[in-house]
């Protein structure tokens, strides 16, 4: 096995000089594109907040000027931190994240504050304030990761450790998980609770990026012919089947259909991106359909979801209640929406959609901002995806390319799954709407994704190690050639 010496040799002096330069002093670097976009975000959110204030209080002032100022201040600090650190990273991701988070803040401010409360010392925080806290922490995390991560070795080298950690998280959920609405989604340790699957999705992508980048050429080059299909040698399908089993395990253990769907979809997309083999995707889809049929046959709660999806109005006061209320909300919104703060009529003092702040924020936004606003929000997710895929396509090596692609897809596919559930395009599954839904683990995990994308996009980051070591698949017997 020959190491390709030319690439490494050519790059090494450059990297050294860059490192030497950094050691001397950090050169601030203006980020005008990001600044302009952040200004646009600030103006938009200010208008939104004033609109909300006018609706709820009748005065043309921001609904909660202090919280909005804190939020915008956090964005400004994040921007300045990157400027001062002299980063040459993507300038669009932070404003998009800021916009989605701002929309989240406005929504959480206007929902009944008692939906979530948290005691900080003597003060009790309501939904909007708790979400603001998480949003600021999320922005901080994305910025710290984006600025501080200068090397991907720690991700690249320990991929099996990461995989083990992920499975550990899963088991943790099984052992310590608390049942909420039939799903064992959250884990509580002392005062902290979180959803392991949110972190698991990031770990999964890191593992897949490592695995696929190492074994990529083997998966592409080797063939087994089964009828009309050209397949890689069958042992190479083992990871696919393992992944499938893990996804089913998530459904069985956590009863978390959404996470299983997300993991499997991202997995298939990455396998395709890495190999370009449609046959693998076809096999994956067949496995997926078989698994879904199996799950529907075995588990009542899976079947119930599917029944509601097929006929949401069949049981509008029972199993279909949430989704029917969601569809009504979209209908009330119509094309232009009823305006921030004007939607979700209280009936008997209650919001009509249960879990609106975690599972149905898109329905609430669809009502208040209309179809136009909803499509704009969906477009923001596509912008994140586009930035991520672009970073992936321009990456210096396969690991980074697949990692960036996977990170972008984690956000994009998750947004799709919950939006599709809200709109009854897919059966409803309880994943969060990234960067908008209430919840600390969701916000932090997605901020971690954005932070990693920022780091990967930085042109000044450490170059990848030279390709050399091949994956363990290359040591499997029966490789033919």
């Amino acid at each position, binding site marked *: 096995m020959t190491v390709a010496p030319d690439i490494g040799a050519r790059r090494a002096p450059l990297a050294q000089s860059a490192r030497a330069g950094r050691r001397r002093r950090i050169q601030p670097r203006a980020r005008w594109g990001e600044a302009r976009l952040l200004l646009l975000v600030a103006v938009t959110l200010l208008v939104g907040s004033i609109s909300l204030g006018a609706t709820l209080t009748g005065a043309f002032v921001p609904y909660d000027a202090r919280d909005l100022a804190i939020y915008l201040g956090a964005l400004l600090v994040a921007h300045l931190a990157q400027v001062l650190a002299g980063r040459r990273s993507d300038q669009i991701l932070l404003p998009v994240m800021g916009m989605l988070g701002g929309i989240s803040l406005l929504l959480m401010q206007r929902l009944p504050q008692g939906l979530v409360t948290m005691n900080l010392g003597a003060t009790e925080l309501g939904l909007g304030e708790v979400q603001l806290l998480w949003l600021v922490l999320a922005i901080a995390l994305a910025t710290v990761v984006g600025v501080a991560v200068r090397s991907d070795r720690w991700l690249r080298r320990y991929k099996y450790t990461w995989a083990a950690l992920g499975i550990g998280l899963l088991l943790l959920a099984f052992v310590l998980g608390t049942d909420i609405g039939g799903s064992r989604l959250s884990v509580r340790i002392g005062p902290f609770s979180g959803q392991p699957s949110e972190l698991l999705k990031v770990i999964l992508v890191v593992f897949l990026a490592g695995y696929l980048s190492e074994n990529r*050429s083997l998966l592409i080059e080797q063939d087994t012919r089964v009828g009309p299909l050209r397949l890689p040698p069958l042992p190479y399908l083992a990871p696919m089947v393992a992944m499938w089993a893990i996804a089913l395990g998530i459904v069985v253990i956590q009863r978390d259909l959404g996470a299983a769907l997300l993991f499997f979809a991202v997995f298939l997309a990455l396998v395709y991106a890495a190999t370009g083999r449609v046959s693998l995707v076809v096999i994956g889809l067949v496995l997926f359909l078989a698994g879904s049929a199996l799950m529907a046959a075995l588990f009542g709660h899976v079947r119930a979801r599917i029944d509601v999806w097929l006929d949401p109005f069949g049981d509008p006061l029972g199993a279909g209640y949430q989704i029917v209320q969601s569809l009504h909300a979209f*209908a009330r919104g119509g094309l232009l929406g009823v305006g921030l703060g004007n939607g979700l009529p209280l009936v008997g003092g209650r919001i009509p959609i249960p879990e609106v702040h975690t599972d149905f924020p898109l329905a609430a936004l669809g009502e208040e901002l209309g179809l136009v606003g909803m499509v704009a929000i969906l477009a923001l997710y596509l912008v994140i995806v586009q930035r991520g895929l672009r970073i992936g396509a321009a990456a210096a090596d396969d690991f980074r390319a697949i990692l960036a692609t996977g990170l972008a897809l984690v956000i994009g596919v998750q947004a799709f799954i919950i939006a599709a559930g809200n709109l009854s395009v897919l059966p409803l599954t309880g994943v969060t709407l990234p960067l908008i839904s209430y919840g600390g683990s969701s916000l932090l995990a997605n901020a971690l994704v954005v932070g990693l994308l920022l780091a990967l996009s930085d042109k000044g980051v450490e170059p990848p190690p030279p390709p050399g070591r091949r994956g363990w698949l290359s040591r499997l017997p029966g490789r033919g050639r």
Partner: protein
Amino acid sequence: MQSGASRRRPLGRTIIHVALVLSLAFGVLAGAGGYWAVFRAPELVRAPDDPAVIAAARTVPRGRILDRDGVVLADNERGPKGELQRVYKGRAISQVVGYASSRYGRAGLELAFDAELSGLASDPLNDALRKFGADPYDPQDLTLSLSYGLQKAAIAALGDFRGAVVMLDPTTGEVLALASTPTYDASKVADPATARQSFEALQADKGEPLLPRATLGRYVPGSVFKIVTAIAGLGSGAITPATTYKEQPGAEKNGLLVDGFRVRDGHHVTTRSKALDFIEATEASCNIWFALTGLQIGGKEFVDYAGRLGFGAPLPFDLPTAISQVTGGSGSAPGGFKDDVELANAAYGQAETFVTPLQMALVASVVANGGELLRPRLVTAFAGKAGKREVGPETLRRVIDAQAASSIMEAMVAAVEGDLGRRFTAGSKVRGVTTAGKSGTAELGGTGEPHSWFIGFAPADAPKVAIAVVVEQGGRGAEIASPIAGDLMTRYLAANP
């Protein structure tokens, strides 16, 4: 091996494929958003279980409901605690207008037009623009084609009997009266103080006062159904007005044998051995002639023509309607009949044939209107802040040609004014005006009194009003239903010459 390591394959192409697939998926989401937020929205925002509809009901005064002369049938009043409640003009209109109760929901027009009355309804364009106004609610007043005076007279005419009267203007489809008995006091259901007591009593009442018989009652039609058979026969060309059956006179005495079943008649005392044509058979209400006609038409054609009249599906009406049927439809013979016996019996209205009074009024008005079926209408105008919107006449379809309609009209005139016809339809004639009609006596089997039926219209040469009357277990058509129809048509024509 070596090439794989040293020459890196770029991922750009496959990444673009992934991007395309995800973009398409998001496109589907936007499409689904459009489907629910625009395409299905008009229906969903009007649904009575929409939270906005429920919330508005508590705060916004509902639109009023007025009759054709401006009489206020439904209005709002402040209760003792200051909350809004509905008050209604009288018991006569309860089955039509229904009630809006904070406790028992909605019924009748209050249910069917809940969104308009509560002020949430609008067309999609206005739905989009209305939101910019300070007051998003625009309760609409409904104007009905119903005449409160006529409605009261119809309820009074039915008296203690259970039954229904439907009167409509055959040239416009406007419903003039839609009476069902027994009725009830809707104001008591709407008043929170008396709602529970009165509603529970109504639910327990064996007479089913909450059932709007005119639209949801399904009755055996008896001989009035012969007009449907005539429409199918003449329309399909299976018969002409001159059609006679040579086996008919001979069968009068002992009945016509169809596959072992005897179709019987009672008029041979007067018609003796005459072979009747269409008009004579209608005047004499000859079961045997119509049974033979039914067989001549064939089951499939029969059911198809009934379908053109509105059978087999809910009527396109402002209130929910029960489905009228010629046959249960589960049989293997053409059209879903079990066999020729069922077809022959259905042809004179006595098999698995069930009809609503509204459907039979439409049958009469198709004949009156030269063969064209108009959509029956109750609501003629919506009036809100944005102005008044009229609902005009709407032709649903031509059922038969004008010549066939005219032959049937001639037969129906004979059934009221002919020497023999008068015996069956005594009292249905409007004095001084040529009247067309057909009575019916629907045998229920067992020992109970038959349902008494009449359908008809007047004046025959230029019809202004069509009517269907059914009196449950009222006896022979001539004795009960016909005089009620005659009185009510006389009353309407006197007021609207």
